[in-house]
């Protein structure tokens, strides 16, 4: 039963949602699209509860770290910061929804001035990481690595003004590399990945894919 019930639910919901995307069926008051959108709404509810469980797990992990302060005192600072900020934003968010039906100004202020800039800062590290990854990757160790190196060099020269100054055809060559062999390879991978995604979805709906149920 522990496996059969989830598989049955998966089959029923999967078939209904899939069919609602390819056909319209109305029998009296029964409308396939309405049933499908209702089930999608239930899915959103289940996701919200799952997110709550995940948040509770996060809280428990960090509470345990704080309790084990003697083992690792420095970890307590990070755990406290996480719990305080998590609690603060949760309280502000809930209070805003309950009282005004929208986020409170303080919530928006913290989100715009702390969370967004922090995310942008981490994102900005990509520039440096791309440089270090390129330094490690673009080496002529094998035929494939040499092709990668030469292609990357041509693309870089084609995209910067200095490249065009060195040879006027570098931009056209870079465009050709991007639009012809690169696009062809991408489309090939895309076709394979798309067919794989369909097959995985069909397997999951029909209950053949049970890796998540064990």
């Amino acid at each position, binding site marked *: 039963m522990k496996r059969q019930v989830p598989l049955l639910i998966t089959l029923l919901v999967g078939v209904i949602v*899939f069919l609602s*995307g*390819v*056909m*319209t*069926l*109305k*029998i*009296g008051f029964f409308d396939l699209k309405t049933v499908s959108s209702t089930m999608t709404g239930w*899915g*959103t509810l*289940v*996701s919200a509860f*799952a*997110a*709550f*469980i*995940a*948040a509770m*797990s*996060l809280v428990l*992990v960090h509470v345990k770290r704080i309790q084990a302060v003697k083992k690792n005192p420095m970890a307590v600072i990070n755990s406290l910061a996480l719990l305080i900020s998590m609690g603060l934003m949760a309280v502000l968010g809930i209070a805003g929804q309950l009282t005004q039906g929208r986020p409170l100004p303080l919530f928006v202020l913290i989100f715009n001035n702390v*969370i967004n800039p*922090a*995310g*942008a800062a*981490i*994102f900005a*590290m*990509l520039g440096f*990481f*791309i440089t*270090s*990854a*390129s330094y*490690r*990757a673009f080496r002529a160790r094998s035929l494939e690595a040499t092709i990668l190196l030469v292609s990357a060099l041509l693309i870089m020269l084609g995209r910067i003004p200095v490249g065009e100054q060195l040879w006027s055809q570098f931009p056209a060559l870079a465009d050709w590399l991007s639009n012809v062999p690169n696009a062809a390879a*991408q489309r090939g*991978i*895309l*076709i*394979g*990945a798309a*067919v*794989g*995604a*369909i*097959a*995985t*979805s*069909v*397997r*999951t709906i*029909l209950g*053949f*894919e049970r*890796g*998540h*149920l*064990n």
Partner: protein
Amino acid sequence: MSSANEQNFHRSKSNPNVIDNSRSNQIGGILVTFSFSAQGINTLFIVLLIGYLGVFFYNKARKGELPKMRRIVGLDVIAEATGRATELGRPVHFSPGIGGITNDVAPQTMAALALMSYVANLTAKYDTGLVVTIRQGVVFPLAEETVRVSYVNAGKADAYNQNMVRFISDQQFAYAAGVMGIFAREKIAANIMMGAFWAESLLLAEAGSQVGAIQVAGTANMTEIPNFVVGCDYTLIGEELYAGGAYLSQDPNRLGSIRAQDIIKLAVVILIPIGVILATANITFLKTLLTY
């Protein structure tokens, strides 16, 4: 519909791609309306074909006619990476991606969960530490249960620790920062990233490289494949991620499905040059058929 039993075949004014072939009938006093969207017919055909072929080849695989799969180095090396982590006494990190299971990247997450089961089984057998980091809350219970059952199946139920599966954050870069911190503090020896990733892929790959971890990654997101190719030691590209579960488990179900995928891809490969030639000769019946 102006009246019952009326049948309309014309292009919908609001969306020319939809052929309004809606049909209404009164059956026992109940109005029944049924119609197909233009693309829906093609979609339904492909899905039914893949489903039929999957079941056909599954039956063949169950009788012992297992399809041969080419060697996928990235999957073979997972066991080696886990062994290396065991020797070094450092944990293995696994990430099933930052996509969820309710959007268009759900198949990648499902494929990643299947691979997570395999990795958890290995770490249970070798008594290696395992850290699974989760971004999407909805994936967390699935991941927790997958790891727990893998440990139970390996006979190491007492070795399972709730701290193995950690929800980090649902913000993309907060997740990346958290995982990078885990890499640095816990000195992971093997980093396995399977599933849907976006911009944080290179951050995680570089962070893993900085701590000297052996890295295996797989995604079907086109934009991140180059990041993994340059940042990781082994990369599974596109469909190799979906084939991972079948390759490692040799389960007839999954192998039959892989064979079905290959048949469909072969059909596409054959149709492409035929379509190019026909389109060049201005013969449009194939295009009309496939875009009906």
